[in-house]
């Protein structure tokens, strides 16, 4: 049963990534694109977690943690640049 559940999870996250990509191209504003990128990072973390369950190895969670950190820093730097015209003042 876990195989079917994992297949559903991968399919759902794949469709979710496609929807995020549509929002990333469509816009209409810059904030929408930042939000779409942020959501894409969340969905990719989900794919990494499911890959960890499917492969049975715990090594992929460092990748998930790194992606969570880098995604957050990326979102905040986009937003800071648009708000202040600079990232580190």
């Amino acid at each position, binding site marked *: *049963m*876990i*195989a*079917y*559940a*994992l297949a*559903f*999870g*991968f*399919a*759902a*996250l794949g*469709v*979710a*990534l496609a*929807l*995020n990509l*549509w*929002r990333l191209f469509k*816009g*209409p*504003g*810059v*904030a*929408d694109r*930042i*939000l*779409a990128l*942020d*959501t894409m990072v*969340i*969905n990719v*973390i*989900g794919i990494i*977690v*499911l890959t*960890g*369950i*499917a492969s*049975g190895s*715990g090594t992929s*969670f*460092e990748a*998930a*943690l790194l992606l*969570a*950190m880098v995604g*957050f820093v990326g*979102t*905040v730097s*986009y*937003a*800071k640049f*648009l*708000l*202040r*015209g600079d990232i580190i003042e």
Partner: protein
Amino acid sequence: MTAATPASADLIVSALVVLGGAFALIGSWGLVRLPSLMERLHGPTKATTLGLGAMLVGSVVWFQLAEGVWTTHELLVSVFLFVTAPISANMIAKVHLHRLRQGEVSEGAGPAGTPGPPPGSADWATHEAPHEGTPGDFAGD
């Protein structure tokens, strides 16, 4: 996947993975479907908290029941995501307000309309230097 997986682990982890995938899909669907950015911010937060949370709990349960080991990386990831998700949503909302007040016509204002000017000589967030007496403005103190 090991052959000697307990049936309970199979059931619990399957339910959690399906729940997580469904919430991630619903969050991204909301990101496409909702009409303005302030409403669109609402969708992916569900994907972050409930969707990824369910998947990470499923991963913890899977490694405990099927492999017999406790893993704490998932808890680290979920704590980090739960702490950072409101901060990034707040920053995106500030960018939206800032660009609305700059008169970017491409952005829809949302149900609440364009925000009015803040009281006094204060400002939301601009390209200007901080005003005199702003907390954190150490040069003006």
